[in-house]
């Protein structure tokens, strides 16, 4: 697993989950904002399934826009959740290109396998809670709490 605990560790991680009283926080890192958004999506799917078991057989493209960059993160994550729910698909690889307040995201994954993917918990939605997108010493960090 790439996932780390909330106390963090010395190694550089692509994403992590963090604690929230009733739900769970997701956080993605990247050299670009797009990479951070993609890694936040990885964190999202790590809450739902064992992403190491999700093969990249199918490719989906999504576009999203929002009034500000933080809301764009929520919009991106919620669009993925809707797509996953409707098409019964889960993802394990993402590429996101951000231009201004719009993004074009590509997600790779496959149909949900209720045994192999070791499902954990459904995510009801990405929230505005502890929502932030910022740059810290050269690394972009994107995060929010998801309602499970």
């Amino acid at each position: 697993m790439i996932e780390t605990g909330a106390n963090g560790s010395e190694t550089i991680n692509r994403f992590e989950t963090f604690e929230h009283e009733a739900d769970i926080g997701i956080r993605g890192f990247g050299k670009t904002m797009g990479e951070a958004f993609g890694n936040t999506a990885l964190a999202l799917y790590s809450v739902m399934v064992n992403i190491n078991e999700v093969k990249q057989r199918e490719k989906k493209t999504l576009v999203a826009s929002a009034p500000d960059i933080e809301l764009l993160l929520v919009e991106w994550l919620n669009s993925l959740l809707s797509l996953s729910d409707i098409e019964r698909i889960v993802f394990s690889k993402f590429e996101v290109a951000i231009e201004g307040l719009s993004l074009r995201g590509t997600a790779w994954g496959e149909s949900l396998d209720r045994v192999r993917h070791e499902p954990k918990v459904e995510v009801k939605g990405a929230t505005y809670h502890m929502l932030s997108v910022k740059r810290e010493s050269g690394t972009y960090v994107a995060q929010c709490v998801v309602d499970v």
Partner: protein
Amino acid sequence: MLSVLCLLLATSCLPKTIMDPKSFHKINDYLWEIPRQGEMRVPGRIFASEKLILEMDEKVREQVTNVSLLPGIQTASMAMPDAHWGYGFPIGGVAAFDPDEGGIISMGGVGFDISCGVRTIKTGMTHDEIMPRLETLVDHLFNRVPAGVGSEGLIKLSSGQIDDMLLGGAVWAIKQGYGEKRDLEYIEEHGKVEGAEPDHVSETAKKRQYREMGTLGSGNHYLELQVVSDIYDEQAALAMGLRRKDVVITIHCGSRGLGHQIGTDYLKSLATAVTRFKLPIRDRELASAPINSPEGQNYFGAMSAGINCALANRQIITHLVREIFTEVFPESRISMLYDISHNTCKVETHIIDGKKKKLYIHRKGATRAFGPGQIDLPQEYRHIGQPVLIGGTMGTSSYILAGTEEGMIRTFGSACHGAGRAMSRTQAKHKWQGREVIRMLEAEGVMVRGHSYQGIAEEAPESYKDVDEVVEAAHQAGLARKVVKVKPIACVKG
């Protein structure tokens, strides 16, 4: 040693500042007030024991205060004994708004899982009668009631059929053959709320529901077999048809993908409305609009449709449970005890300063708890008050209470909804293994079937507040009075 270390590690990571009881005006042992100050329109009121206050996150106070600023709020911004840090409203938050005083409606006061709720069903059987075939029954329930990530219901609804379901709720479900007409008497608003507007529910939301009708979901949702262990109020228990050792079934689930999508859609549109109407909002999770505005009315119509979806969903699951139960125990007599909803905004008439007012009551992680005499209650409960079903956790007890006159006055007829989490999911997951939790529970006489070991670990009994303490606080605060306690004997988790 290792587990102690894990616990210390986990505890040190919890971003929780505990509330200081001294910072409240203590009205009595079970009511703590945040006096009205600054921009607050009304005071904040937390109904809890000192022990529960001491365990609450400081954020609860902040969120109760934020809600007190909202236009049109009546009497007080309230939090129930199980309150914890939520989105916008605290979970366990209750607030009433008057449309004629510029009152608002807020997505933050309802949440993503619209009308998530609890339904308890009587079986007509006792603990001793059920034990010989308990395992067969539980296996059937586990295999046949769709639950867990990616589960699919047996009923697939086309777009037009979905609209009928959103208008009709449990009434629709019964017309389709899922259940008996008399079930409806034992559901709030007789199985469907008025005001649902399927046109304001997005196509995405409807598509998300296509495969999810009649599914339980995951997380804290469950189906549990329980035995009446203690009776506190003989008369009320009698009216509810409960005796010691009776077996009941409790279902906890909500409006599934459709409700979640309505939440997602309107969080966005109401956040925009906040700017348009220049609402005094400190936290954007309190996404709101005036009730008397197109945005507010659209949300009310969609959210009401979401409530009906949850009622239909629980009705379909009830039907499945009834079929399975009758198959395994042909001698059983399945009948409804009651169905309550947690995450709702409902139009109700309440008395404020001696005047009858039509108010929009938000209950976020709180349940309606109508007192005696209310017309919405079935005849046999009208003298005792509404059954208030309070879920514990897998290993601990749950309670059935009854609404009170006092609750009608103090909290617009509202009470707490469950134990409420005390420990984060991450902490729970680090502390326990799913298999270990199952073994522990089986040793205590609770059979557990789950679709995810991690899910079970996250729902470990000790990760919740002490339900006994929460229920005692609700009882002592006069929000609802204890009728019976039920103990789980089997639990199916999503």
